[in-house]
């Protein structure tokens, strides 16, 4: 799923400068699961914004609403009424959701309350880690189900770099070295020959950006 992280309150307040009535719009799908932009986070952010507005002596008002999915047009119908009396929408969806709401209401400023970070999984309570870079050319069958494109900081295809140490990555000793994990997984499965196989340069145009898929 898509993982996001709320922007700092100060940045959000700067973004909202000049707008009096603001709708804080949550999304009930991915960002609800990753605790960044669901109904609960909308309520907390609204409270924080009201408090800071009061302390600053401003007169902004904040309304709250959460829909099931901001990245799907059919779920946006119910917003027609909600956005009638607002000057801006602060969306807590991923970038796809923000973009679609903005497209649906082209006269209305739709602002991002989150930074969309990656496609990932909930690893443990409150911790989310990246698993897929949507490269368009999946090789998980060759790498024991562990993606070097997403999980190696350099996206290397032919084994670890010299920066790995005790199974960790050179950019962050808290992060696992993807190629150490791949080595361990393939060894366990008796398939180390897959790691020995030469992998040619990646096709960076497997998805010509911006991506478009037509279902057959």
């Amino acid at each position, binding site marked *: 799923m898509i993982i996001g992280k709320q922007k700092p309150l100060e940045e959000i307040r700067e973004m909202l400068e000049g707008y009096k009535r603001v709708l804080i719009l949550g999304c009930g799908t991915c960002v609800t699961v990753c605790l960044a932009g669901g109904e609960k986070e909308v309520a907390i952010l609204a409270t924080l914004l009201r408090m800071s507005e009061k302390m600053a002596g401003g007169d902004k008002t904040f309304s709250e609403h959460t829909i099931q999915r901001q990245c799907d047009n059919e779920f946006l119908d119910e917003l027609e009424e909600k956005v009638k009396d607002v000057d801006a929408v602060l969306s807590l969806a991923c970038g796809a959701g923000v973009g679609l709401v903005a497209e649906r209401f082209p006269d209305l400023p739709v602002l991002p309350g989150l930074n969309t970070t990656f496609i990932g999984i909930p690893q443990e309570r409150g911790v989310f880690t990246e698993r897929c870079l949507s490269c368009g050319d999946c090789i998980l069958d060759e790498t024991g189900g562990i993606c070097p494109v997403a999980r190696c*900081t*350099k*996206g*290397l*295809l*032919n*084994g*670890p*770099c*010299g*920066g*790995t*140490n*005790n*199974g960790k990555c*050179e*950019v962050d000793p808290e992060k696992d070295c993807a*190629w*150490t994990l791949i*080595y361990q997984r393939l060894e366990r499965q008796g398939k*180390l020959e897959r*790691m*020995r196989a*030469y992998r*040619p*340069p*990646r096709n*960076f145009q497997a998805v010509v950006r911006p991506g478009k898929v037509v279902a057959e």
Partner: protein
Amino acid sequence: MARPFREVLNSGKFVVTSEVGPPKGSNLEELIHHIDLLKDRVDALNVTDNQSSVMRYPSLGGCLFIKEHGGEPILQMTCRDRNRLALQADLLFAYSRGITNVLCLTGDSIPVGDHKEAKGVFDLDSVQLLKTVRLMEEGKDLGGNDLAGGIRFCAGAIVTPEANPVEPQLIKFEKKVAAGAEFFQTQAIYDIDNFKRFMEVARRFDVKVLAGIVLLVSAGMARYMNRNVPGIFVPDQLIEEMVSAEKGKALETGIRIAGHMIRQLKEEAICDGVHIMAIGRESVVPDILAAAG
């Protein structure tokens, strides 16, 4: 004129290479001083490529100076800052100017350097870059097109013999050999017994291995590397030797240690040569060589 590096590698002599790091800026006085100091004392000189992801004067520029001053340059090329078009173009340029040795590296990651928000390219990796060199030698580029005039390089790579775990590194070592690496310069080694175990594996392949020698300048540096530099392990015994050095004599002790290691590697024919990295202290490389006899 310096002897071509491949010829030296295949001559059976104990090979000595060293390296120079270009400056941050266009003042090349010190770089040229180091080149002049070292070019006739070693068989070839690497020029680092935005080492540690820190932006500097280019490796290619340093290599041209070595060439002009009659030395034998080894062009370090990382995959971090250039995509496959730029890497191939630089190989063509280097070859056209008489640079015929290349060390193919993946490159450190961006966040360890001084441009922390830059894009890390990594369009190719070190294995793919080695393959690219060999492909271009056959007169083709990575797009499958014919080249009007190819290239010819003595191509090398690096390996970290003391990495933990070492097995994934050994697999990569084998892939680099298969991709066309003729020589390896290793990450710094300090534990000769450990290095001998690596050499037992490396000896099965038709490649030359130059052991990485990094000059210790203080006990603090040794401890720092143990904590922070992947694949470097300075044994306690050497750290104690540095600690017990008389005040002001730490550098001398470091030079003696490096010299002793080189002599042992050579006398016991453990590997094919050494690559001396005196990071920031290039001027003492002749002293290290003197200490090694």
